[in-house]
């Protein structure tokens, strides 16, 4: 196994990235509601834990019990990984409350305190994989673009020093080819994986595309993605329809 690469364990995704994500990278997982961001992140953590890499999952969007009950439906999920501490799941809203940060907007000091706590947790748990679900919800509490930039940059830099690969989920409106809510997150991240969909005969086909991955000669092809009880699976997307719909749009 290449020690410089963090293997996601999703075979087709790793092939697209020439073996995996460079260790210590911060990757933005972009998608609208229901696009599979949380599943992709959890599969990344579980596969890592099965290879002996500890992971931390910070959730803001879903209560823990709901998250767990959704995950239990997947064959890849193994609850013992949580029981034995290989994966730690933390509800950030509870953390905010305990830190007295249950306010609408954070000051610079609040943001700095939160950053320190996340860093301490990652370091103490010796995490090699970390997920924040979602960075959009967290950034909502930061008051300016500068604070968002500073927060993600400092978090990413620290996690890179401890060789922890990070997934930050970014929520975007459906059918929009944008990578973040605040227009900053994508520039600070080392990688962007975009989860979207295409319409075919009235049905929606899920898609996955690697937009950027620093330090990797990665594929930029769009893949069809399927979420089954086995987790995320990918196959090359058939292109003919997309090309013909683009052409018809130009003609109009």
């Amino acid at each position, binding site marked *: 196994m290449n020690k410089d690469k963090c293997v996601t364990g999703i075979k087709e995704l790793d092939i697209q990235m020439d073996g995996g994500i460079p260790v210590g990278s911060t990757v933005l997982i972009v998608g609208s509601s229901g696009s599979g961001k949380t599943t992709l992140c959890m599969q990344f953590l579980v596969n890592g834990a099965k290879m002996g890499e500890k992971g931390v999952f910070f959730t803001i969007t879903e209560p823990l019990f709901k998250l767990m009950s959704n995950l239990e439906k997947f064959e890849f999920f193994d609850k013992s990984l949580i029981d034995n501490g290989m994966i730690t799941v933390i509800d950030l809203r509870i953390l905010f409350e305990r830190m007295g940060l249950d306010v609408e907007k954070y000051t610079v000091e609040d943001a700095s305190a939160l950053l320190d706590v996340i860093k301490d947790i990652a370091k103490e748990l010796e995490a090699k994989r970390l997920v924040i679900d979602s960075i959009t919800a967290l950034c909502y509490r930061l008051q300016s673009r500068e604070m968002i930039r500073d927060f993600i940059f400092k978090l990413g830099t620290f996690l890179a020093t401890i060789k922890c690969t990070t997934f930050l989920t970014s929520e975007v409106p459906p059918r929009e080819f944008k990578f973040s809510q605040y227009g900053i997150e994508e520039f600070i991240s080392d990688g962007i994986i975009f989860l979207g969909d295409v319409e*075919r*005969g*009235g*049905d929606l*086909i899920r898609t996955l595309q690697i937009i950027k991955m620093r330090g990797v000669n990665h594929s930029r092809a769009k893949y*069809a993605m*399927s979420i089954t009880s*086995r987790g995320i*699976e*990918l*196959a*090359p*997307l*058939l*292109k*003919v*329809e997309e090309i*013909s719909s683009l052409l018809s749009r130009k003609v109009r």
Partner: protein
Amino acid sequence: MTTTLVEGLKERISTSISMYESLGIVLPGTNYIDLIQALFGCIREHPNDAWVYIAVTRPFESFTKMLGDLSRYPNVTFVDCISRASGIVRRDEQCVYIESPTMLEKVVMEVMNLFNKAPENAGKCLILDSLSTLMIYNDPPLVIEFFYHLLNKMRSENIHTISLVIEEGEGDKYINKMIYLNDKILKVRDTFI
């Protein structure tokens, strides 16, 4: 007469798949049932091989009616592309259901998953029933692209492919384009035997 036709078809299919990687079968709709019987005769005669049957022309249920108890064919698994889209909600251990026949990539994923579960040294064979029905649900160029992908994927994995085309009237230009991607073509006619 029908028995002779089925036996003749069975023999030709068995011979062709032992010699060629991909076989295209063009048949009139009236001979569909005969061909199904011949194909399942082949499946039964190769009990150690793993077979996957992509059902687009008829739902999985209809095969249980046509062939009786499918547990007599434990080496075949169906990928049913039309039941869910028609609102039929059933579960069966011998069948994987796809939400819609437009989800062609998902068909490839499920086929590969099923073959990956098969014993490594088993012979593997895929039946696609049929290219002509897939074109009812999808644009013909998309079906051609799908068939190219599927054939090449199967060839790279040493999996034999049998693809059916149910002919109605004059041969369609897209069908002609596709069927000739196969290594061997078998045309079923009334004068076949």
